[in-house]
């Protein structure tokens, strides 16, 4: 039972590679052999293959703009690289990034300027900051600086929007920025008291991520 489970886990970690065409020879035969006997893995492969086919079939009109694409592509490639290192999440993550890239493009047609802006690029930098679990703890001040820089740029963009945001929207944004800033302050204070705590570093990064994502969205409205 344990051996079967171990084989199963080992094969599951290679399903993404199989779908990517990265397996060959004996490894490929092993994985395919396991699929013949494991309904759960067959279902997982089928679901992922179907999803990727459908994403590939999305219309060209939802492809991301040239300006935005390099950042998104680099993140996608980074996630795919991690997937080849053994993460089962990778394919779904990659597929989702592809979808979100499409969503971002759909957003750009509305604004009409098609320019992702420097703040948007900074937000991308912030979003990719601190993903390494070791760096997360040892260098949390560094990723916080990345996020803080991105948030500051986006906040300036928000201020420049002036009356383009309705008073109601602006009130909602300001109230929720207060909520997030309080969460950031609490997480940071706890982390300063317990600097090796990875959970606290994650909580801090998560709060910063919420702030940057919210500002990024609101400045696009």
């Amino acid at each position, binding site marked *: 039972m344990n051996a079967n489970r171990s084989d199963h886990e080992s094969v599951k970690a290679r399903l993404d590679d199989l779908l990517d065409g990265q397996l060959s020879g004996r490894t490929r035969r092993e994985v395919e052999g396991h699929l013949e006997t494991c309904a759960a*893995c067959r279902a997982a492969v089928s679901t992922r293959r179907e999803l990727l086919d459908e994403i590939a079939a999305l219309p060209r009109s939802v492809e991301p703009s040239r300006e935005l694409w390099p950042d998104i592509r680099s993140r996608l490639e980074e996630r795919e690289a991690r997937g080849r290192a053994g993460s089962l999440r990778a394919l*779904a993550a990659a597929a989702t990034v592809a979808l979100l890239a499409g969503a971002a493009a759909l957003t750009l047609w509305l604004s009409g300027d098609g320019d992702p802006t420097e703040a948007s690029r900074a937000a991308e930098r912030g979003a990719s900051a601190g993903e390494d679990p070791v760096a997360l703890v040892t260098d949390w001040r560094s990723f916080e600086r990345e996020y803080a820089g991105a948030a500051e740029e986006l906040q300036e963009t928000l201020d420049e929007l002036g009356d383009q945001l309705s008073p109601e929207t602006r009130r909602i944004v300001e109230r929720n920025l207060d909520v997030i800033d309080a969460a950031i302050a609490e997480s940071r204070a706890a982390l300063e008291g317990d600097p090796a705590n990875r959970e606290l570093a994650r909580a801090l990064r998560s709060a910063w991520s919420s702030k940057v994502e919210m500002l990024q969205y609101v400045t696009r409205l």
Partner: protein
Amino acid sequence: MGMTTKRMTTKDGTRGRFRAAVSALLLLAAWTAGDAGAQQRFDEGRLAAPDGTVKITNPAGAVRVTGWSVDSVRVTGRLGEEVADVEFTTDERATYVRVVPREAWRDRPVGGTDLEVRVPRSSHVAVRTQEGAIEIRRVSGAVDLESATGDLRIHDDPRFVYARSVGGNVEITGVSKVMRASSVAGAVSVEHAAGYIELSTVSGPIRLSGRNLWEGRVQTVSGDIRFEGDFQEGGSFGFESNSGRIELVLSPHIRADFDVTAYAGRVETELAGATVSGRGGTGRPGTATGDPEHERVFSLNGGGARLNVRTFKGSIRIATRP
């Protein structure tokens, strides 16, 4: 003096009544003209590809999109006086519907121009509004919705859903393979979910129910999270809050591995009907590496889906359905 006063009063009264009558007529005329503007009917159609893209922008009101089995896009609605034009065009890439407000109305809160749009059922649909609600029915392509403060409602089964609002609620009932929905302050509610899901809010609550979820995350800063349902074996899901309460109500037959942490909050489990196995810890069922009030690592029914549950100072409750 008194007569003069009376006569003048009578005369003034006659003039006053006349002026009042004229004013009333003018007001009526103005109101009628204004109403004609406010009630101007729009009803046009264009041929469209059965699986093409339809992009709708309406800063002046709500949009309701319904899929139908006809290869055309039809737009109907009553245009408010704030609207200068409705641009309804097509090219090789998409069909576009764009409500253009009058210059004087730009950047002002308006909400009188509601559009009803029929699209081929397999269309990919993108809609943007400011304050108006967006509702989607019977569309099976990708759906991409954004609004500042309008509510977003998606029914049936689009293949992909991307829905985002600052102040509005997001409500999704149906099965999509990939879904990403968020609101800053509104509630996010998803029923009958399956596949890959990302849901987030800052302060709004999140409710999610579904079966066969296989990947995703649910995240909020101060809102509460409630999940009810099941996960695909081999799936992986994360729930995270800063101060909001997280509650998972699961089938007693679920096969899953849990990694649960509440830094300054409390973890509570009620797992009747499930076989619980913990790793390390105090030896109490469902406890493991640290203080069981704050951190637990355990498996149900031998393990399967990987579930990470995190909160900074909220509470976490994981329970099986009776």
